[in-house]
């Protein structure tokens, strides 16, 4: 998933190892902004078939790679 994030957001010079599981993705962490959040919403749709219905959930879901992974797994468990 880190690789997908790097690819989706065209983050040159960053490798998956550079992103910590709990590192904040936005502002002080990786420095992402509102446009990146929209890109990540599409990433979830494209790769995991998850539609983030409520945009207000964004900050919670995209806090870190771990929260994203948990959100995806919770969704897949629901659909299984």
């Amino acid at each position, binding site marked *: 998933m880190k690789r997908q994030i790097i690819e*989706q*957001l*065209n*983050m*040159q*010079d960053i490798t998956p190892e550079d992103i910590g599981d709990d590192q904040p993705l936005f502002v002080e962490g990786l*420095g992402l902004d509102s*446009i990146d959040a*929209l*890109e990540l919403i*599409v990433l979830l*749709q*494209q790769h995991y078939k998850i539609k983030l219905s409520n945009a207000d959930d964004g900050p919670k879901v995209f806090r870190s790679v771990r929260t994203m992974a948990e959100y995806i797994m919770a969704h897949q468990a629901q659909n299984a």
Partner: protein
Amino acid sequence: MDRGLPLGCPTGVTETQTALTTVSMQFYIRSSGNISPQNTFGQVPFLAEAVVSGPGKFSCLEPDYRQYIDAKMIRRMSRIIKMGVAAAQECLKAAGLQMPDAIITGTAYGCLEDTGLFLTKMVEQQEELLTPTAFIQSTHNTVGAQIALMLQCHNYNNTFVHRGFSFESALLDAAMLLGERPASQILVGGLDEITGYSHELLSRLGLYKGAGSRGSAGLFSGQSSGTIGGEGACFFVVTGSRREGDWASVDAMTTFYKPDSMQTTCRYVDSFLDSQGLAPADIDLVITGRNGDFRGDEIYRHLLKDVLGNPCHIPYKHLCGEYPTSTAFAIWLAARILQSGSVPAAAGTGPAKTIRRVLVYNHYHNIHHSLFMLTAC
């Protein structure tokens, strides 16, 4: 010496109406940042050798952008945005200017790569699963906006997008701002890019010489149609208040649209010189927009012979190719020639004497004509 700045308007309304409207002012080129198909960017000798292209297109020599653009911003930028922002940064650095009083860009095509990307995904994915980045970077004002963002510059910010008048309009806007506040220092530039799609489509429209042509080196040999596609991002700092070290003075400029005949074109050029109180003999060098397409080059031949009395002249599109804002490159060339006093061999053969006054004349498809008079500082 204070000469006027004729704006805009020899008019085609009536035969008798040929006088140019004059606004009293003149402005100076303080610095430039030029990314072009030649080695023009940064502290480099003035066209030490000519870079030649293969057939079809003439692409820019690009610097390592990471020196100029913050890593967090660069990841969203397409090539033209990087070219524009870096050229602007270099230009400001050369002028020793941190905060310009205005940022004005001219671009006919805007951000084609992002436009093509979003368009392609939209069509291929049938309007589903689209992401915003290419869209928001596709607007024509992106380069001007990104420069403002990078500098945290809240001042005047404008973008002109009128085909072969895009850069001319931007420069006129700058000239008028300087007319209002002469001490201002304005960042103004012209930029356009070639993309895979644009080159393919403009080729289908018959604009370029075919794959069998010799590229930029053979641009003016033989009587054939078509030219070579070019691109560039060239910025200037201009000001109304002269300082030691300024490159050149822009004394006058004008544009005219769709002249109805060769005679009309000749009359406009003639009256442009008239309005400056100049005779053809006063001009040391003419830089023409010849592009190797015999249909359009005919106009330059006529003009040089019938109106300008066979002056010393050089082309410039063998150095940068043809594109709607190529006059930004021509102004850069004129200013550097005036700064150095002579024509570098890579550009052509100049007169033996020191060059003090240059006329730049370009037409884009015989629709957009522009004239600039520059003198040494």
